[in-house]
């Protein structure tokens, strides 16, 4: 018999641990270990992989971030007068989540904001965002003070900027306007939006569970960078002179609209650019898109007789006609290949100067016939017609200049008198200025300089930008001192400015009928463009009046002429140009 193995002697207090108990203890230990290891892994995972996302969530829950708007830069005229700026205003907002009694809050605010309490309550209750809704934008300071003193929990004031054009309608088409978000929607406000806008800053604030701000170092502010400023070439006084006179003329002749541009022919700087009817940028929504359009650059139109000097200059330069050559103008009636042309007054033989002075269609028809299609087309394009001037305004048109393969047999007599082509007023005044600066086509400019927020110069545009030479200097001088002064001196002396002898060209174009083709019956575009004083011109002035009442008058010298004369006189007096000695500058 196998003896029993000796048993381990038991101590008196030793627990009697069974096998199953040991197994359980081990199991629990292993489970606990696994759990702890799992937790440790999870902890590492949370602190490494998930940390960034969780910190962002915590940040958004604990901190509130409020944008601080940058102040949009100002727009100044050439002499530093403020044309557009931003004024500070407050806007009222609500945090619907923490407003316990919307009706009571709305009742209190309604008294200050002068709006129906129901509207405010509805805004709070039906806010699309649970934590934010605007109640009233851009209130005045007195209202803001009243709301601040009420200390309503859940109601806040945010400082914003309101764009303001202090001169109202003055230069509205040049300045443009901004939308409710403060960004430019037209004119210079749109063209230079990036420069004017600046960069917004923000303020983050630590908040408790009830979204109450916790002060101290927990607030963090990143200051906004204010926008840069813009200095235009526009002179607001000249602009006012032009707008006032143009509006008078449009009203007097019961016309549809009017356009005027004043340009410095030596620099290409535009001193004034006006359209009538005009609009107030402070209330731009009250005006139609059609009224807000800057027709000086967007609307090409048949120029009529104001176009004759361009063809005449090229004809002179290229020898198609001599300065003293006599051209028979057939006493005001002639048929070119079956097209009957007539002049407003009958004339026989005339020089090129007289053809321009008396605005002979027949004389220009003969010159066009001599030149032929290709030379005419080159002449038109040479002056920049058919190409955008790049003046820096949105929606600029390049005009309508068909290639010669689309010209008819009439074109060589139509184009020299400003028909079958369409040009914009800015193209016209730019090209006309070349007569007064020695034959150079300059790029028209509306911006003098870009300034930083602290008014130091960032970029200055003081030098003229030459596009090309369009005619020799002697031809330009001939046109400026002989041909164009003759229009005023010999034919329309009533348009002369006594103190500042004027050289220009009138035009009376028929208005094309876009529906039926041809021309509208009894509707005209009356124009006059002139430079003064012609021996050393300071300004070129264009006035175009569209559809004046035929019952009153419709010729360019009657409708647009007096406006150009008055604008020229007022502008040169304002610029303090001494009266020119008319004896010395009289035509030979």
């Amino acid at each position, binding site marked *: 018999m196998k003896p029993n193995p000796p048993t381990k002697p038991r101590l008196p207090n030793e627990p009697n641990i069974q096998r199953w108990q040991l197994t359980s203890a081990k199991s629990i230990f292993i489970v606990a270990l696994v759990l702890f290891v799992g937790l440790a892994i999870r902890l590492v995972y949370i602190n490494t992989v998930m940390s960034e996302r969780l910190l962002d969530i915590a940040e958004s829950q604990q901190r509130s971030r409020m944008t601080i708007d940058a*102040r949009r830069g*100002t727009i*100044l005229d050439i*002499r*530093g*007068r*403020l*044309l557009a*700026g*931003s*004024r*500070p205003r407050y806007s009222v907002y609500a945090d619907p989540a923490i407003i316990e009694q919307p009706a009571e809050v709305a009742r209190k605010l309604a008294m200050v904001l002068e709006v129906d309490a129901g509207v405010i309550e509805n805004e709070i209750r039906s806010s699309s965002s649970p934590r934010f809704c605007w109640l009233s934008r851009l209130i005045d*300071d007195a209202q803001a003070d009243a709301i601040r003193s009420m200390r309503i929990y859940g109601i806040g004031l945010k*400082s914003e900027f309101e764009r*303001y054009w*202090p*001169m*109202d*309608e*003055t230069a509205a088409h040049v300045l443009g306007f901004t939308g409710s978000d403060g960004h430019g929607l037209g004119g210079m406000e749109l063209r230079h939006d990036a420069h004017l806008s600046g960069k917004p800053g923000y303020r983050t604030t630590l908040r408790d569970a009830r979204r109450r701000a916790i002060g101290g170092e927990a607030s963090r502010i990143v200051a906004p960078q204010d926008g840069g*400023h813009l*200095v235009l070439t526009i*002179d*607001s*006084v000249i*602009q*006012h*002179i032009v707008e*006032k006179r143009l509006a008078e003329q449009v009203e007097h002749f019961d016309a549809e609209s009017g356009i005027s541009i004043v340009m410095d022919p030596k620099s290409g700087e535009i001193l004034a650019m006006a359209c009538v009817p005009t609009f107030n940028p402070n209330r731009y929504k009250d005006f139609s898109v059609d009224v807000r359009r800057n027709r000086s650059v967007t609307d090409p139109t048949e120029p009529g007789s104001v176009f004759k000097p361009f063809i005449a200059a090229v004809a002179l330069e290229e020898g198609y006609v001599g300065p003293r050559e006599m051209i028979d103008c057939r006493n005001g009636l002639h048929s070119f290949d079956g097209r009957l042309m007539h002049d407003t007054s009958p004339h026989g033989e005339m020089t090129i100067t007289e053809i321009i002075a008396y605005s002979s269609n027949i004389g220009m028809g003969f010159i066009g016939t001599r030149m032929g299609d290709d030379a005419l087309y080159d002449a038109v394009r040479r002056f920049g017609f058919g190409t955008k001037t790049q003046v820096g305004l949105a929606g600029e048109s390049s005009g309508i200049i068909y290639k010669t393969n689309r010209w008819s047999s009439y074109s060589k007599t139509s184009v020299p008198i400003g028909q079958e082509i369409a040009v914009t007023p800015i193209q016209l005044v730019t090209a006309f200025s070349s007569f007064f600066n020695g034959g150079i086509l300059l790029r028209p400019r509306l911006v003098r300089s870009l*300034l930083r927020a*602290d*008014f130091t110069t960032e970029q200055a545009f003081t030098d003229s930008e030459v596009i090309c030479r369009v005619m020799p200097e002697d031809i330009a001088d001939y046109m400026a001192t002989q041909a164009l002064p003759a229009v005023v001196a010999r034919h329309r002396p009533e348009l002369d400015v006594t103190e500042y002898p004027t050289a220009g060209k009138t035009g009376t174009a028929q208005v094309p009928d876009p529906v039926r083709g041809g021309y509208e019956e009894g509707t005209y575009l009356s124009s006059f463009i002139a430079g003064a004083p012609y021996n050393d011109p300071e300004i070129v002035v264009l006035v175009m009046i569209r559809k004046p009442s035929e019952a009153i008058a419709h010729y360019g010298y009657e409708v647009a002429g007096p406006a150009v004369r008055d604008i020229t*006189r*007022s502008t040169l*007096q*304002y*610029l*303090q140009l001494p009266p020119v000695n008319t004896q010395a500058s009289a035509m030979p």
Partner: protein
Amino acid sequence: MTPTRAGVALLLVGIVCLTVVALRAEKVRVESSIQAHTAELVHCRRQVWALQMEIARLRSPEKIQQRIERFSLTVGADFDRWLSPETDESYASLED
């Protein structure tokens, strides 16, 4: 450590503590003052900007002409010389 030394040590600790408290109180006061002045500066700047706009409105040629007409002022033959370039201020006046 003798009672005297312990008293001196306690006194020094007390002085240091009071100094720290005083400095912190002063810091809070200064910060509050800075905050108040900053708020005042912001308020003044807002007023300056608002006044600049109002001045610009009043200097508008159209408004000047309206005032001339309202007050029946005689401007004579030199009417177009009003607001001549020499009398205008430069944009430097708009700097804050």
